């Protein structure tokens, strides 16, 4: 019965993931500024989520092993770490490809890149530890302790994040609904910082309902200032022109205008802002997350069962030979 269920689950997950892969190219609309590279997000985010989930599952089963001492729990912890490692590699690679296409750089020690790198190192260390201990009981117990101990230290990467996040590439405020980039509120003639760019609001000019801001942007690495003119319709509060930052696929937008005080709120908009507003994209995205999570649990089950069989065989051979 269990075998039948596993067989059915395998087929179902296979069809589901295939459907997600097809939808990724056919159902998803193409996004301005991202091109076809934007489609990789459908793979990248779920694999990153599964790599963290796998780490938690591995720590959970390690804890259960220490508590109950059943070898099955250790099989599950190992299986979770092994499949988690695969997903971590996938998330790193898809992220680096996307980063190169959109931001022109493969690797930047962005907080999330640092975290996933540490996660890769922890998995690698866990495998190194397992291979360095011969006695099976001791191996199980010590790797369970390491797995749990590492799980305690990982949350501290969150505290590190604000310290290195000035160089973040991840569009926190672009993809996550409900969270917004603050932007910068400056008066005419004043200087401000937007990310790592220095901006100067030169003037606000009103023509009819439309206000156009003249902004001087100096990019780190470029010697000359660049003049950008984002605009905003004050009657229906609509953002009109979204000029690109030079060499990047980020836009400069005018978010709010206060003509009486000659102030304006300027902000960065990443390509794909409001990506998930589109229901087709949202559904494909959720389907991908569900599919990859199911795939992970299926891999976990199969690998853990296999480890159990291997262990039983090894014991049998030991008993006879």
């Amino acid at each position, binding site marked *: 019965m269990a075998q039948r269920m596993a067989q059915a689950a395998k087929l179902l997950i296979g069809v589901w993931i295939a459907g997600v892969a097809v939808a990724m190219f056919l159902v998803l609309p193409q996004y301005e500024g991202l091109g076809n590279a934007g489609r990789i997000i459908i793979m990248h985010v779920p694999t990153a989520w599964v790599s963290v989930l796998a780490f938690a599952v591995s720590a959970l089963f390690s804890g259960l092993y*220490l508590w109950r001492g059943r070898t099955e729990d250790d099989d599950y912890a190992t299986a979770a770490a092994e499949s988690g490692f695969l997903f971590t590699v996938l998330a790193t690679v898809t992220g680096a490809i996307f980063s190169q296409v959109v931001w022109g750089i493969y690797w930047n020690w962005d907080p999330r890149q*640092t975290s996933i790198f*540490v996660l890769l*190192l*922890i998995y*690698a*260390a866990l495998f*190194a*530890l397992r291979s*360095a*201990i*011969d006695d099976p*009981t*001791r191996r199980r*117990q*010590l790797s*369970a*302790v*390491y797995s*749990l*101990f*590492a799980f*305690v*230290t990982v949350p*501290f*990467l969150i*505290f*590190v994040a604000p*310290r*290195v996040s000035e160089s973040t590439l991840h569009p926190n405020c672009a993809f996550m609904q409900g969270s917004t980039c603050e932007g910068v509120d400056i008066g005419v003639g004043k200087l401000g910082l937007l990310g790592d760019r220095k901006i100067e609001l030169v003037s606000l000019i009103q023509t009819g309902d439309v206000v156009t801001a003249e902004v001087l942007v100096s990019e780190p690495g470029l010697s000359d200032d660049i003049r950008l003119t984002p605009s905003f319709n004050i009657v229906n509060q609509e953002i009109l022109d979204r000029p690109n930052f030079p060499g990047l696929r980020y836009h400069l937008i005018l978010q709010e205008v206060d003509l009486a005080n000659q102030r304006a709120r300027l902000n960065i908009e990443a390509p794909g802002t409001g990506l998930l507003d589109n229901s087709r994209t949202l559904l494909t995205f959720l389907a991908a997350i569900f599919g990859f999570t199911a795939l992970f649990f299926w891999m976990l089950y199969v690998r853990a069962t296999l480890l159990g069989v291997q262990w039983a065989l090894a014991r049998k051979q030991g008993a006879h030979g």
Partner: protein
Amino acid sequence: MQQPTAIRLPALLAAAWAIFIKDLRSELRTRYAINALVLFAASAAVAVSLGVGFIGVRRSAEYLLIQSTLLWIALLFAALNGLSRGFVYEEETRTIAALRLAAPPIAVYLGKFLFNLALLVLLDTVTCLLFIVMVRVEVGSPLAFILVLAAGGLCLATATTILAAIIARASFKSALFAVLAFPLLVPPLIIAIQSTALTLDNNALALALPGIRTLIAYAVATFVASLMLFRFVWEA
């Protein structure tokens, strides 16, 4: 688990102290860990001073960050060289069984932790003095500098003591120790490097305080986790 479940605290601390004193005595006889740590720190400081110790480097913010990074690299690798000694030594001289009979696991952990802490205080002092003299690190806010170093050293000790106990039971001990310890030390290392760079400038106590707090939180979390998990390492 053979020990009675309720061990009185004073007895526990006395046992931990006895183990600490024993380690200190045997260390002073062989001076293995002390030699390894101090010589490593000295070589690192000399190597660094050959490259960046000359007169005429401007004290920009980047240079302070580079100095603090080099200091922490020296501290980290010296620590990874010497701190596994406490448990590996017991395994090599086959005294683990005796220790297991003589004291409850938590007392063993606390004793070894104190010993590592003592080694780190020595290491911190020697490395910093050498860096101040040879690499011409000028410390703008001494109190903040000492606090960051103390908190960072505490993190190194809490995170690595239990790992030393783990690798003492495995093969390829010294290589494995660095492999296991590094990923766990990345968060405190980033914070310690950046906070130390701040303290090289003047009046940096208020700026460095959030970093020190995070380091202490990390040390407390890993210390408590070690206390809970050490029993399983010791029994394995």
